[in-house]
């Protein structure tokens, strides 16, 4: 019987060998793909096992991490907390155990959780010394005072709206507010009783106001009369008129080209043959409609694109594309040139328009992340300001500045005046919806200029005018005071 016994011994050895081979396949060859499989809960457990790095504004964290209660079923150790979550939500996005992360929290997730490749060396060192992996910090360019002014102003008006403030010289985002907003800490955990309920309540399906929409970056509005700044820039750049004060030879009433429709002004304002300065001061639809029609679609489109229309911006949080129509007939071109028809812009886009004018024609790339810090606070990367384009020459920019300053000193934007500071601006009101049935949006874009000629801030504010008050007055009445407070906050923080 010994011969078959020896064979059985070999057979048993082969069984063990098969298991050994399988185990090597599983724990060596396939180990990495199994370990990092996103459905493997260990990936999430590791992610929430250490405090998340912070997002920092003006040297203070606006986020935090909280040890979660270690009850039986929660295997995530830390959850995100937010200070003034609703105010900062458009900047931070959210980081939730149950619902993942969005916007800045998602884009810089690697740094915040500490898994980024740029932290690899430190992590390896930590592993060897037995220290826990730590997350780094994201230092933003935002200005706490300006953000508070923007959010408080929007909250006071109470309609849907957004405000963006930029540093024209660098493109740094100083304020980025959206209203109504949400507090991301309400659903940062993974409890089905509280977090899931809070999340469901914030969805558009249960709240028609869509509080989780980042209106500053992710929603477009017809820019209305604020777009006349772009049209004026196009006129100056293309040499249509010689300066701001040359009469424009525009008729009143003005019939849209190739049609019998009359383009009307709001109220009885001196628009006949008005020079551009006066036309901007009173916000003449007729004058800028004619300028757009005279320049033609291609030249208008070229100028709009230079200001950033028709492309997404990455701040690094993505903003949606602002639209200036690429195909349209002459009457539509005239309408588009006064910010109607299909023209639509994000608040960020209109802030970029104001900032380019304020920065003597140079458009800087907007950004909100100043630098990324390692857990040791060493700087990993520092964002360098970058010029995006030059929509208008320095000389023309100064002409346009003087026109916008007239709007604030003598025109529709008087509410934005700041003593001792030169302010240039433009109001706007945009109807929308079928037969203009929607509540109109009140716009105000502006910049402030200090005595030394430097321009520290450019702002765009849009709010839904619940009074449904037509005319430029609402832009000046509702949006301009918010813009003024934001600009003041920035100027005061410089002192």
């Amino acid at each position, binding site marked *: *019987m*010994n*011969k*078959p*016994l*020896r*064979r*059985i*011994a070999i*057979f*048993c*050895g082969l*069984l*063990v060998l*098969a*298991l*050994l081979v*399988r*185990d*090597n396949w*599983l*724990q*060596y060859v*396939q*180990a*990495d*793909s*199994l*370990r990092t*499989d996103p*459905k*493997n*809960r*260990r990936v999430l*457990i590791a992610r929430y096992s250490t405090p998340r790095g912070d997002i920092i504004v003006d040297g203070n964290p606006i986020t935090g991490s909280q040890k979660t209660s*270690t*009850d*039986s*079923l929660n*295997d995530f150790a830390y959850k995100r907390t937010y200070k003034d979550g609703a105010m900062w939500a458009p900047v931070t996005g959210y980081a939730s155990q149950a619902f993942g992360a969005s916007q800045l929290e998602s884009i810089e997730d690697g740094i915040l959780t500490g898994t980024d490749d740029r932290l690899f060396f430190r992590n390896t060192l930590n592993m060897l010394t037995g220290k826990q992996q730590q997350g780094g910090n994201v230092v933003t360019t935002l200005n706490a005072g300006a953000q508070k002014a923007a959010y408080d102003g929007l909250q006071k008006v109470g309609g849907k709206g957004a405000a963006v403030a930029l540093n024209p010289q660098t493109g740094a985002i100083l304020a980025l507010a959206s209203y109504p907003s949400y507090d991301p800490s309400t659903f940062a955990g993974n409890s089905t009783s509280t977090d899931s309920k809070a999340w469901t309540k914030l969805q558009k399906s249960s709240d028609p106001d869509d509080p989780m929409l980042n209106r500053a970056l992710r929603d477009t509005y017809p820019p209305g009369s604020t777009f006349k700044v772009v049209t004026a820039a196009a006129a100056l750049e293309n040499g249509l008129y010689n300066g701001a004060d040359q009469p424009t030879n525009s008729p009143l009433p003005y019939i849209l080209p190739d049609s019998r429709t009359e383009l009307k002004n709001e109220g009885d304002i001196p628009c006949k043959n008005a020079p551009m300065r006066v036309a901007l001061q009173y916000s003449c639809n007729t004058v800028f409609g004619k300028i757009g029609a005279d320049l033609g679609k291609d030249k208008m489109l070229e100028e709009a694109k230079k200001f950033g229309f028709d492309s997404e911006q990455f701040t690094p949080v993505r903003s949606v594309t602002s639209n200036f129509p690429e195909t349209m007939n002459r009457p539509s071109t005239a309408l588009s040139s006064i910010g109607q028809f299909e023209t639509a812009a994000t608040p960020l886009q209109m802030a970029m328009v104001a900032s380019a004018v304020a920065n003597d024609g140079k458009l800087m790339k907007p950004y909100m992340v100043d630098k990324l810090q390692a857990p040791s606070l060493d700087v990993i990367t520092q964002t360098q300001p970058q010029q995006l384009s030059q929509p208008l020459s320095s000389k023309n920019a100064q002409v346009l500045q003087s026109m916008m300053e007239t709007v604030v000193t003598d025109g529709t934007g008087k509410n934005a005046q700041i003593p001792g500071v030169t302010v240039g601006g433009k109001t706007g009101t945009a109807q929308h919806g079928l037969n203009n049935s929607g509540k109109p949006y009140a716009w105000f874009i502006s910049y402030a200029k200090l005595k030394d000629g430097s321009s520290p801030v450019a702002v765009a504010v849009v709010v839904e005018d619940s009074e449904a008050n037509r005319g430029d007055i609402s832009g000046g009445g509702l949006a301009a005071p918010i813009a003024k407070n934001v600009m003041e906050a920035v100027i005061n923080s410089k002192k």
Partner: protein
Amino acid sequence: MSSSTNTTTHHTSTIGSIGTPSRRNTELALLVFAVVIPVFAYANVGLAIDSKVPPGLLSYGLGLGLLAGVGHLAVRKFAPYADPLLLPLATLLNGLGLVVIWRLDQSKLLQSIKQAGDKAPNQLMYTAMGVALFVAVLVFLKDHRVLQRYTYISMVGALVLLLLPLVPGLGLNVYGAKIWIHVGSFSIQPGEFAKIVLAVFFAGYLMVKRDALALASRRFMGLYLPRGRDLGPILVVWAMSILILVFETDLGTSLLFFGMFVVMLYVATERTSWIVFGLLMSAVGAVGVASFEPHVQQRVQAWLDPMKEYTLSRQGVAGHSEQAMQALWAFGSGGTLGTGLGQGHSELIRFAANSDFILATFGEELGLAGIMAILLIYGLMVERGVRTALAARDPFGKLLAVGLSGAFALQVFVVAGGVMGLIPLTGMTMPFLAYGGSSVIANWALVGILLRISDTARRPAPSPAPNPDAEMTQVVRP
């Protein structure tokens, strides 16, 4: 010159079994390691989870040491020539199993679903019962050949044990497999005991019938075909396995018993044709049953595509389980060296994390290195068992030893292969490692029987009785 001397020396040493060392001191030395290693592992778990040496360390160490000591003394007294490796290896596996069961007891998730919490003390109690049975086997089974007398009683006993889970009111249906019975507050897996009893029956039966089975055959295409009437026993065992598969829906037990029988039949008859028949019949049986038994089909599906099974389970489709995928993730997350004891997340396997799936915790926390070590320990135990069969002098002992070792090997393969996704999952547990009284107790008895056979095999032959005729014999020279 010197080489010829060596050859001579070597030659004489293989002939004489007189003076074979008992190796009891080797066993004792190995046992020290087998106790100390789990004690360190236990301390390691406590340090990893609570950052302090667990308070139960001393009692755990003393408990395991005491059981090992009792086992060793029993062997020293009642089976002094037994194999020196089996007891330490079993002790090591049992000790490591206890550590990991205790480690899973600390998981709040498993506590909340009543899969852990107080299992380690229970397992220690089962281990004590197992060692008691082990000692009882050594004390009362003076000679394994006694078992030969109970061949047919064993057959009846095995059938009863196998059928018990089907008795209404006694059987338990645990996640589809009906291999449990309920006695008071205990649940027992009779299959674990049936394994040993069946091995006794097969060994007794085959010892008697082997000549008939081996010799009366016709040669056809290089194979010796058995006579039709000799096919009877294999058909009966085959039918029994199929019945287990159909009525208890347990692929593992079914495969184990049939595999054990084929192995023993092959050893008894030395006819390869039986292996061929065995493989054919198990293939026909498995495919046949799988064609109409949804539980078996589902196990195969889960094996072929564990991710799909996971997704279905997550979607709440009834009858699906995410365990297979969770086990694979546990192994993968462990990688080469593992996370370290107490630092993994194998509680995600939830149900049966400390029994059927305990190997996944080892995989995650001790890594590839740990699993390879454990598989090699099992391999070593099996080979020591087969070595015992080789050394045994009587055919019954040979068959019993190879049957028990083969069943042990098949069980390890079926369970570890199932958990690692090599073959479909079955409802059996890793011998000694997994939580469960039946398994631990039955396997200690199994080791006891192997030690008894090995003691008989290695015991020096009694010196020949003085022959009264010796002096009377005259040498007649031509």
